[in-house]
């Protein structure tokens, strides 16, 4: 452990950064460096997101008019299935942990790497391998079961169910490897002085996410394996035609897939906890409660899967218990929102682009979370189940929540990852366009669903529903333009952006002690541990835009 830290980026000019230290595609594909693996993940999941976005655009364009416009009913089934499967398995679940988490987590610990670098690389390769299966599905007859693979239809469907299930199975391993790596890294690689309650909240969020990845994903693995087994042999485990139980499939599936919802949202909350504090220049309010609430969400998330099955024929007693447990999840979620608001209260708020995303997240997650209560209530869910209300609800959480937080984190750590500042103006405009487009696309779906439009339908009553559908399609196109703008702004920064200082935002966590971009081994010496949410001893140098600690700053490890 080093004892002193002089200047932030001393020696960065001497030693090349992680992007430049070695060259050639092999130095990337076979790298053990968590930063490069994170960047490769970032590129890969962005490509998946683009693919899933094309499917989404296809869905919305088809729904502009009722009935067949340019795909038939079967084609439509394939569109929404592939949209869901690609977005869930290839983008949202690996998104924040594997791309941003991989890059940031060891840096935040002042460590040289994650605990198991080779397993980390294996995780990326498995992801690529699983993604290949998904692409193979496109080439071989598509998939029309919905991303949930519900039996008995998935046993009978003539589409490429086995390839898709195999792909998801492999992706599950990738997710487990990331989870194991993060748990061990957080347990074993913390620097001296960083106790559990001095960890940045991002790490708490990653830890809670990793617990879910490790505990839930294997159950999806065995479920998909049994599904493939059922399809190959007709074993009669899930298929009622052979004496099996399709409800058992739903139990198994949601035992993974409901906690998976928290694999999607917990990292998003973790990012927002960082952003809100840094851009309010105020210590996070209620640190311990935010940390505990992450773990509480992770654990409670395992007890609520039955709320996906209120209308599937589970017993009334089970439904009532699952409903009550579902409400309990809203408590830790609300604690987080209140604490973010309290952090901003009387803070010196800067509306930099990452903060815009954080604010968008809070606004959209609030709507997404509160509409979840309608669906957790038995009586209203019977009416709203499988309508567009559900579609709107989970898009507000997954897109409005996870995607916006992901973009916020991406903008926040972009200077650290690539050493360049992006155009603040362009980024802010893109953010606002995406925010507006998202709301125009998805808010109409709440009344649409409440009025009775079922999800996954290709045809609808023109007089009742067409205006909502057309509004949603317009919003989707607008959202697409916003996302396109983000891509342009970020890619342009790589070419013509200003060089980023080590600490452009004034963050107090340890990744900002590394150079931008960091050297191959992250730090020359492990930097001293400071309070991750103390900003009053950081001063901005107007000449370079860099924040550095004043002499009065006392590391917590030197006591």
């Amino acid at each position, binding site marked *: 452990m080093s004892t002193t830290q002089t200047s932030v980026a001393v020696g960065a000019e001497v030693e090349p950064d992680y992007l430049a230290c070695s060259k050639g595609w092999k130095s990337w594909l076979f790298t053990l460096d968590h930063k490069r693996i994170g960047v490769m993940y970032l590129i890969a999941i962005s490509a998946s997101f683009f693919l899933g976005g094309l499917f989404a655009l296809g869905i919305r364009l088809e729904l502009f008019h009722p009935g067949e416009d340019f795909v038939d009913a079967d084609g439509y089934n394939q569109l929404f299935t592939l949209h869901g499967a690609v977005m869930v398995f290839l983008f949202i679940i690996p998104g924040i942990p594997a791309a941003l988490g991989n890059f940031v987590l060891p840096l935040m610990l002042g460590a040289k790497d994650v*605990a198991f670098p080779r397993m980390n690389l294996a995780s990326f390769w498995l992801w690529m391998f699983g993604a290949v299966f998904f692409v193979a599905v496109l080439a071989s007859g598509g998939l029309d079961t919905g991303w949930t693979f519900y039996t008995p239809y998935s046993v009978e469907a003539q589409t490429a169910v086995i390839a898709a299930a195999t792909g998801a199975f492999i992706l599950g391993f990738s997710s*487990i490897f990331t989870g194991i790596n993060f748990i061990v890294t957080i347990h074993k690689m913390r620097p001296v002085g960083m106790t559990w309650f001095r960890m940045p909240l991002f790490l708490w969020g990653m830890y809670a996410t990793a617990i879910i990845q490790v505990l839930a994903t294997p159950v999806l693995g065995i*479920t998909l394996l049994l599904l493939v087994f059922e399809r190959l*042999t*007709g*074993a009669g485990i899930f298929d009622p035609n052979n004496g099996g139980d399709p409800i058992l499939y739903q139990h198994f599936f949601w035992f993974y897939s409901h906690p998976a919802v928290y694999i999607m949202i917990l990292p998003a909350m973790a990012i927002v906890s960082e952003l809100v504090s840094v851009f309010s220049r105020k210590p996070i309010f209620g640190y311990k409660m935010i940390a505990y609430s992450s773990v509480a969400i992770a654990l409670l998330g395992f007890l609520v899967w039955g709320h996906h099955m209120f209308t599937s024929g589970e017993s009334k007693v089970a439904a009532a218990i699952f409903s009550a447990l579902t409400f309990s999840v809203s408590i830790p979620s609300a604690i987080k929102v209140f604490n973010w608001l309290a952090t901003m209260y009387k803070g010196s708020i800067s509306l930099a682009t990452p903060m815009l995303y954080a604010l968008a997240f809070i606004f959209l997650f609030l709507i997404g979370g509160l509409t979840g209560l309608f669906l957790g209530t038995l009586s209203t869910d019977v009416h709203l189940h499988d309508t567009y209300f559900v579609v709107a609800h989970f898009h507000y959480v997954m897109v409005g929540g996870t995607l916006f937080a992901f973009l916020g984190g991406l903008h926040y750590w972009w200077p650290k990852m690539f050493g360049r500042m992006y155009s603040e103006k362009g980024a802010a405009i893109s953010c606002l366009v995406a925010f507006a487009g998202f709301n125009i696309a998805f808010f109409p779906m709440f009344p649409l669903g409440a009025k009775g439009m079922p999800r996954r339908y290709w045809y609808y009553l023109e007089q009742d529903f067409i205006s909502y559908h057309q509004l949603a399609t317009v919003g989707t196109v607008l959202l697409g333009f916003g996302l396109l703008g983000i891509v342009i702004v970020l890619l342009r920064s790589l070419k013509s952006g200003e060089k980023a200082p080590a600490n452009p935002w004034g963050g107090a966590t340890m990744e900002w002690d590394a150079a931008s971009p960091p050297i191959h081994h992250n730090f020359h010496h492990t930097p001293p541990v400071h309070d991750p949410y103390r900003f009053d001893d950081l001063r901005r140098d107007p000449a370079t835009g860099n924040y550095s600690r004043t002499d009065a700053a006392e590391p917590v490890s030197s006591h």
Partner: protein
Amino acid sequence: MTIAEPSTPVQHEAEHGDHPPFIAHHFEDANHQFESGKLGMWIFLVTEILFFSGMFCAYAVYRSMHPEIFSYAAQFLDSKLGGINTVVLICSSLTAAWSVRCAQLGQRKGLILTLALTIIGAFGFLGIKYVEYSHKFHDGLLPGKYYQVQSESVADVGLAPSVTGAEGDAATTEADSGAAGAHAAVEDEHAGSHAPAEGPEPDNVKIFFGIYFAMTGVHGLHVIIGIGVYIWLLFRAIRGDFRPDYYGPVDFTALYWHLVDLIWIFLFPLLYLIH
């Protein structure tokens, strides 16, 4: 789940002067690396337990819903071979634990011997499993649509499991004539490999064999993976990689092997010893 870098010692000494070759650059010392690896292995074992838990859960649901299928179909499993396999696997677990001790004490010969014995035990398990599986295949005691006995067995043996669910009635009528002689043909062939079935055949016996093959198949796959890892360990032990301050891979693989053993110890009574 290995931590050591694959590169040669020379390279490593050059890069990190103060690090012994077997310690990856991001760990402080041998103990740090060992503890991290061990925690990682335990978490991995948790995922394994949850992976199998799906099938144990399916087992529990179907057994409580259709106890008659289980008590009928379990008669076709050979508890003698299953029992022998249990002993074989427990012995290989003993040699696996022994290999850890040898590695800790730096006994290279003992390590090589115990690793080899563990591999032999694992192959023995698979061999016996192969004999069992081939009997099942021969008798058509298979999952789902493959569930059918050979034609002469259906004709000769009223109680033999049959393809369509409606055969239950037929089995009942034929039971009067041939309960005692049931499976005589099969027994002749396999030298008493299983007891004659009692009572009429319930519907959907194939569900049992679906669960049987899913559970033992996935378990067998874990044994095969274990053999692969142990062969790699044997290779490294012969090369002399392990020493008292670096034996993590041996320790972690033994943990995995004990879990594979433990799962079998649950599978055996749940599948074979229903009667």
